[in-house]
């Protein structure tokens, strides 16, 4: 979850960034990139909390799963991207972010399930 979160946060403005505009103007996909950066940072904080605090672990994993669902829906569904599917935001950013958030979500759910089995972090 932490690895996915870091890749999302760093990738959203580097190698997985949305379309680069020649004239400096920004489209909707740029704002999607900003939102993904925020969600990636939030997910990273949640992942660190899950690692460090045994008491908050179960809740942190559930929060991670919820943020991941939000992340999967952000590019394209909650925030629109360019309408041409050959554009970078559609060809690179969207699929990569969906896969990364889905992986983080699955890891969060697996973590929550293990916590529930062990009875840790649940009062």
């Amino acid at each position: 979850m932490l690895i996915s979160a870091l890749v999302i946060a760093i990738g959203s403005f580097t190698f997985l960034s949305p379309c680069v505009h020649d004239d400096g103007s920004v489209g909707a996909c740029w704002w999607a990139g900003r939102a993904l950066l925020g969600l990636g940072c939030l997910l990273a904080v949640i992942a660190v909390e899950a690692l460090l605090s045994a008491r908050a672990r179960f809740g942190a994993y559930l929060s991670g799963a919820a943020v991941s669902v939000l992340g999967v829906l952000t590019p394209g569904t909650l925030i629109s991207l360019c309408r041409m599917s050959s554009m970078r935001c559609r060809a690179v950013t969207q699929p990569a972010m969906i896969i990364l958030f889905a992986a983080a979500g699955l890891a969060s759910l697996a973590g929550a399930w293990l916590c529930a089995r062990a009875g840790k972090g649940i009062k």
Partner: protein
Amino acid sequence: MRIFSLSVKNLVRKPGRTAALALLTAFLALSVFGGSVVVLSLRTGLQSLEARLGADIILVPSEAQSKVSFQNMFLQGTTGAFYMDAAVTGKAMEVPGVEKAAPQTFLASLKADCCSVKIQVIGIDPSRDFTVQPWIARSLTGELGDMDVVVGCRVEAGIGKILRIYEQRCKVIACLEPTGTGLDTAVYCNMDTMKTLLAAAEEKGVSHRISSGDDSVVSAVYIKVKDGYDIGAVNSALTGKLRKVTAVRTRSMITGVSDSLAGISRTVTGMIIAVWVLAFVILLLAYILIVRERSREFAVLRLLGASRSMLGRMALTESAVCGLAGGIAGTGAAAIGVFAFSALIENSLGLPYLMPGTGTVLLLAAGTVLLSAAVSALAGGFSAWRLSRVNPGTALRDGT
């Protein structure tokens, strides 16, 4: 059934070993499925390009060859605009052997409201067109009216939506089926709409006038040669008759693409074979080591009454289950990669790329999984044979 459950328990109790063997098989499946889908998509794309071009010869202004690679417009959707006198269409029809001549006019938009890049607008004459019209007819039952546009499948403007091109409001009335070529990113309209757009572009400072100052222009003329006529001879006749016009044989374009495709296919196939040979050798070595590691375990089972064939079947089942799990994981990972990033692969290759049908993909996936399981079982078969011949006494005494 008992052998199967015992084999599964053996695998679960040694998660590290099981994961390593499954991972190795997953690499096999990943390379086969991923590589095969890419090669198949390229072949489907080439077939689509052949069907989509439809014409035998394309006439373009001589400047088109240097101004923008005409081939790139088809393959990568590069925008470009070049013009010649509209009278070329009529002159071409006078050449013996020309059956049909369909003009098209190109216009590269400024940034359209759909995207942050230019899109290619192509004006067609529905009464004469024989290249785009069959594709439009699949998606549109009515006529292509004034200020109506049909968009390629990669321009995601919903039907009924308004697309603003040079501040002109164009209504999207249909979306074309995918062709796997750069034409999927184009927008099609009739010639009257194109005249309006050209005039609007002129106001924005984008001139389309040719050197004579004439504004009655076309960008390309698609030629269909009559049956019985030699396409090469007609091509030469057209080149001789029409000044400042280049006649491009579509076959030469397709041959170029086909050559690139053959090169990529050979590379991918070579890589798949290399990965398979390497992975098979590693699997074989891994199972040989496992034989040594498990000889005592099998000796005890023999002493407890397990027959040789039972032990052999157990080892074979373990390797097949490992291969099956790895095959499913590898095929799944490859599917996520090739389907999620298909647009990126297409952009990177710069060749027609069209995914094969669902049935073909499912068959390929099933075949890959079965093949992975079979190869794993084959490599494991050796260890099964060795283990079934373990002498319990020697194994327990020497550990070999």
